[in-house]
Structure formats: structure tokens, C-alpha cells
């Protein structure tokens, strides 16, 4: 029996390919060059339009689109690598790109017809249009199937009525993927549509938020919006399935965002501790703070691997619902712990706005809430573990 195992060492590969490493360096460079004003945008609640345009120019808005439609089809792993870099500097820019790539472009690529793709991808991959994802409503957050927005068929078009809430990039997007009810059935009554900004579509209340302040989160009001039948995605009633499938990718995007924020906080702590010196210039970093740094840095590495594992599965066409949930669960919680630790360790300069720590703390908080709150991730994971 043992003879079979007289083998050369077996490797598991945890490294990025040289090509992806180069890509990461390129994005890191982009972030450094283009996102330096993140604090200013945050204070002034200003959308970083130029930075997003610069990202588009570098091809960062087309990573999840196949080359047939002008994408670079780099996939989910590359997107995660990219999003970590961007979010380490500006999570508002990060979430804009994440929603555009991981939700809108991914969904279109997987579920739309050739005709629909040919119609919309040229505008999306160039960033001429930004995309938004309209699932949540006032009374359906975690319980997405409770949505009430209606789509009534009328000849060659649907008429959409209702209000969508918590729409990232709401006021800046030109294309909306909207989930609406085509029949009363809780789950099978939901359908998905591509809705262009236009008559019957308007931007409602703009949320004032704890963080991610330069990413506009708005209500999108649909008041008799006419949407051609040709803009329905897939068959009637398949919307919920499409939404759930897409969320796996969306969760990876948020996991990557959380990793980026956590890394930025780890870096702040590192820099702060490295600067603690005594009167003679000898390094005297606080021991408990060092221990905390070690814990955070270790978990950061671990959860990055969780995220990459799920992304790799998705790139291979293997369902990664549980793996993506694990990644988002762990990474989002880490980002909050890391941000709180950074504020504590940096002390008054951590809370005063002279460092990025207080912004990271405010930005990190959303990662446990959107794209499925923490308890929803736990539900997904526990359910799979307890299902024989």
C-alpha cells in the first residue's frame, strides 16, 4: 500500500502567476497615481469620476468580460487581485468598479443573449456607461425574494414601477440591472431587466452614510419606465436564480474590498509601530500592539487565500457559493477589526483625520452589511455544512 506514495514532493501552489503579479503591480501603480485624493473626496462627498475614467482606460472595467465583447476575460481571481489594490487606497472607487465588474458585467456575460451583449458591452467595457445593480428595496434587504417592484407586460415592452434602495453608483450609472416582479410567486415571480437611464427612471433619495461617502448610494425610482421585452434577461421568472448566482461574484468583490481595507490598516499599524523610538532612537514598539499586528497580518494572509480559492473555483466554472461566503464572512470581519485596531493603536491621530485610520474604520463597516450581511453568509455556510 505504501509503495504508491513513494513520490516526489507534492506541491500546492499559493502564488500568483508572474502575469497576475505584473497586473497587480500595474493596478497598485494606478491606485497610487490616481486615488491619492481619497480623503478629500470623502470629506467633500465627491464621486471620483476622473479616477474611474482612468481605470477604464487601463482596462480595469472589463476584467470579467470575454474578449469576444471587448473584455480582457481575466476573470474573478484577477478582479480580486485588482480590487484589493484599489480598495487599499479608495474603497469608494473600489466599490464602483466592483459593482460594475463583479455584478453588472459578470451577470451580462453569463445570462444575457449575444444581441444584448453586443448592444451593451461596448459602452460598459470602456466605462462610457457605468452599471448599477438594483435588487434591494425598502422592505427587502437580506430577504431579497420579498421584493415588490413590478414589471407589467404591455405589448413589446414592460412597464416598471417601484423604488429600489441602496443602489451603489445610483446617481452616476447609465445602465441598471433591475429585478422586478412579473408574477406573485415569491421566488419564481421575479425577473431581471436591463434598464437604461431615461424616461420613467430617476434618482431618488441620496443616502448620507457613515462611510464610502464618495460612492453615491441612492434610491432609483421606476415610475412607469418602459423597458423593451428585448431587454429582459433570460426567461420570465429566472430573476431570483440570476441574482443569487451573481451574488457569489459580488461577494468576492466585497471580500477583496475588505482585504484591501484590512491591508491598509495593517500597513498603518506597521508604520506607526516602526516609528516608535525612545530618546536614543532605538525602536520600542509596544509589545501588545506588535502581537495584535501579528494576529491581523496572519489572518489577512489566510483570508486572502480563502478569497482567491473561491475566485479560482468561479473562474473554473465551479459553484463557489460556500467558499465565497466564507471569504466574505472572514475578510469583512477582519477589515473591521483591523480598522478599529488601527484607530486604537494610532490613538488620537487615528481618530482625528490626520491619518486614514478613521476613514478606513468608517468604510470597512459596510463590508459586513452589503452583498449579504454577515449573518446571511453564516446561514449559507451552516446550511451547507448541516445538509447531509
Amino acid at each position, binding site marked *: 500500500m505504501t509503495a504508491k506514495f513513494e513520490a516526489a514532493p507534492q506541491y500546492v501552489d499559493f502564488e500568483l502567476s508572474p502575469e497576475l503579479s505584473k497586473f497587480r503591480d500595474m493596478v497598485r501603480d494606478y491606485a497610487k497615481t490616481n486615488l491619492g485624493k481619497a480623503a478629500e473626496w470623502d470629506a467633500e462627498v465627491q464621486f471620483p469620476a476622473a479616477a474611474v475614467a482612468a481605470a477604464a482606460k487601463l482596462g480595469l472595467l472589463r476584467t470579467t468580460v470575454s474578449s469576444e465583447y471587448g473584455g480582457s476575460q481575466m476573470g474573478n481571481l484577477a478582479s480580486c487581485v485588482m480590487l484589493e489594490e484599489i480598495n487599499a487606497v479608495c474603497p469608494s472607487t473600489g466599490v464602483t468598479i466592483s459593482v460594475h465588474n463583479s455584478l453588472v458585467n459578470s451577470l451580462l456575460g453569463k445570462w444575457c443573449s449575444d444581441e444584448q451583449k453586443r448592444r451593451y458591452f461596448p459602452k460598459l467595457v470602456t466605462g462610457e456607461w457605468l452599471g448599477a445593480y438594483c435588487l434591494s428595496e425598502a422592505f427587502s434587504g437580506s430577504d431579497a425574494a420579498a421584493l415588490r417592484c413590478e414589471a407589467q407586460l404591455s405589448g413589446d415592452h414592460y412597464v416598471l414601477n417601484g423604488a429600489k434602495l441602496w443602489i451603489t453608483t445610483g446617481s452616476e450609472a447609465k445602465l441598471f440591472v433591475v429585478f422586478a416582479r412579473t408574477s406573485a410567486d415569491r421566488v419564481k415571480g421575479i425577473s431581471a431587466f436591463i434598464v437604461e437611464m431615461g424616461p420613467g427612471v430617476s434618482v431618488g433619495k441620496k443616502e448620507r452614510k457613515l462611510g464610502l461617502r464618495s460612492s453615491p448610494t441612492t434610491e432609483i425610482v421606476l415610475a412607469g419606465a418602459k423597458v423593451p421585452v428585448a431587454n429582459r434577461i433570460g426567461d420570465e421568472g429566472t430573476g431570483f436564480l440570476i441574482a443569487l448566482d451573481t451574488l457569489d461574484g459580488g461577494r468576492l468583490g466585497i471580500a477583496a474590498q475588505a482585504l484591501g481595507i484590512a491591508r491598509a490598516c495593517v500597513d498603518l499599524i506597521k508604520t506607526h509601530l516602526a516609528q516608535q523610538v525612545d530618546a536614543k532612537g532605538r525602536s520600542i514598539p509596544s509589545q501588545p500592539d506588535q502581537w495584535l499586528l501579528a494576529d491581523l497580518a496572519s489572518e489577512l494572509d489566510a483570508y486572502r487565500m480563502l478569497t482567491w480559492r473561491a475566485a479560482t473555483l468561479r473562474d473554473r466554472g465551479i459553484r463557489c457559493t460556500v467558499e465565497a461566503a466564507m471569504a466574505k464572512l472572514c475578510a469583512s470581519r477582519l477589515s473591521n477589526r483591523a480598522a478599529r485596531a488601527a484607530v486604537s493603536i494610532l490613538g488620537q491621530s487615528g481618530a482625528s483625520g490626520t491619518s486614514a485610520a478613521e476613514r478606513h474604520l468608517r468604510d470597512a463597516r459596510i463590508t459586513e*452589511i452589503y452583498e449579504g450581511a454577515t449573518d446571511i453568509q453564516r446561514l449559507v455556510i451552516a446550511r451547507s455544512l448541516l445538509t447531509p
Partner: protein
Amino acid sequence: MHNLELTDDQAAILETIKKLVQGVVAPNVLALDEHRQFAQEGLQGLAELGLFGMSVPEVSFGAGMGLVPLVAGCEEIGGQSGSLARLLTAQVQCGIALARAGSGPLEDVLTGGKRAVYLGPEFGIVAVGSSLSGFCELVPGAGEADLFVIAARGDGAGLYVVDAGKTTRTVCQSLGLASTAPARVVLSGAQGALMASGVDAMVAIESADVAGWIAGAATCVGMGRASLQLARKHSSERFAFGKPLLAQQAVARKLVESQRGLDAARHLAYHAARIHDAQGDAVPVAMAARIAATEAAVHAADEAIQIHGGYGYTVEYHVERHYRDAKTIEVLDGGNELLKDRLAAQQFAG
């Protein structure tokens, strides 16, 4: 008789504070915070109630009620406005320090005629003669202060009063306590008036520190309890999957855990105040209370945000403000990191 019981006098004070909080503070607290405006009206109301001197001995023209009513008051005010509780704390600290020193603009501080902010020893402000220099990164109240009461080190170590006009103040974009006009304060050889030195100064400074820690603890308990109540309310009104959130075992469990942490911290805060009021050494319990209360409040507010979901991330539901304010108090008055090390040195050294 147990830790949390109030005397009739103390209960009466608390009642007047409650009325002020409901009538004057609550209606504007969100708008003031969002626009980073100073909580002027609330502070004026507290002055009119004569609360700045409640913890100052009668012999020094205070009400001589000790720190217990300060705890009860800060908890009540903190439940609506951490900013206002912090402004009250700063004024009370200055009154206590000046009363101990037995000199200075005590009357102006007790009446609120001058707005006073205490700069503790943690800032390391250095006195050369009576010329003070130092840098304070984040001082709530500083932007609107008339004077600073300063614990200074160096040659001229002691307790000083410095006119705010002699300092350089820059508004800072703080995480929380936005309605306190938080500012950076730079002293570059500002002339101070010496109030006390030597042991007298040490006693005055310790009194102000203890009051600050205990009031900070009470404020955080108030913010945490408010967050808990908001979460309870939201989770009993909000439905998901056909039942109120509160019917979910895990949600109810979060409330229980938040409450337990806050109750424990509350006991420590009252205990510290009672030890102080009985002339005991309240320093270690006061520090422990400050640490416990900030952690419990940050935790409770964090869970409250989570229970609110997306709503909790917006400014209208109060909980994100409590989260920011509690976390900000954590880094003040030395910060929990320093307090833990001081406790360790005091209680476990050699």
C-alpha cells in the same frame, strides 16, 4: 442599598437633565452632528441648571454632590449626545481641578461664563517657567473654548490656566464628537497662570483625570444603552423572512450580550464614583470602568449597526454616530492603550 441606587437629591438632578435632553438636545442632535456644529444650546441649558459645579465641594462654591450624579447625568446625556456629555465633562473637570487648586477663574467655569477645557498630562505639555509648549492632536471642545486648564510637566510642572487665544487651534475632521468643535491645539510658549504646583497640582490633576475617566465611562454606557434600545426597537419592527428580526435567536442573543457588557461597565463606573465620593482611591477602578465602558459601547453600537443593516450605515438612525463617538472617546484621556499600561504598572508591577 446597592451600587446603582440614587438618593432623592441625585434622582431629582437626573430628572432635570432628562427633561433638558428630551426638550433641547434630542430634536437637533442629528443635524448638529452632520454639519459638525457646536452643541451650544445644550451646553447653555446645562449651565442654566447649574450642573458645572455639581461635583465641586460646597466650600468651593459647588453643589458638593460628588461624582455619582455626574455618572447618572453623563449616562443620560450620552444616550442622546456623546458630544454634549463630553463638553459637560470638560467643564466639570476644569471646575474640579481649579477648586482643588483653590484659585483661578473658578467662578466663571462653574457658571459657564467661560468655556473651559482640560488638557491632561497625557499630552505631555511642557512648562519652562510659566511658558507652555506642546501639541494636542484632538481636543473636543477646544474650538469653542475660552480657556484651557493644563497639566504641565517640565521645570515649571504644575496646573496652569491659559487663555485659548494664546494658542493655535485648527478644527479637525475627527471620527466622532463632531458637535464639540474638536480641534488641534498647539502651544508655542504660551504664557500660563500657575494655579498649583507640587503635591497640590498632582492632587488637582488626579481629581480631574478621575472625573474624566468616570464621566467618559458613563457617557459610553449611555451611548451603548441607547444603541441597544434602538436595535431592540428596529428589530421588533422590521420583518425578514416573515417574522420580526428580534424573533431570530441570534439577534436576541446579540442584544443580551451587548446588555451584559454594558451592565458590567455601568457597575464599574458607579463603583468608581462611589469610591471617589467616599474619599477612597478611585484611580484603578475609574480606569477600568473607562476601558470596559468604551469597549462595551463600541461593541453595542457595532452590533446595533449590524442589526439595522443598511439603515444602520446611514446617518438618520443614530447608531453610526454612537459607534463613532464611542470609538473616539476610547482614544481620549490617554486612550485605552495607555490606561491598560498604567493599570498594569500600578497593579502588577514587581
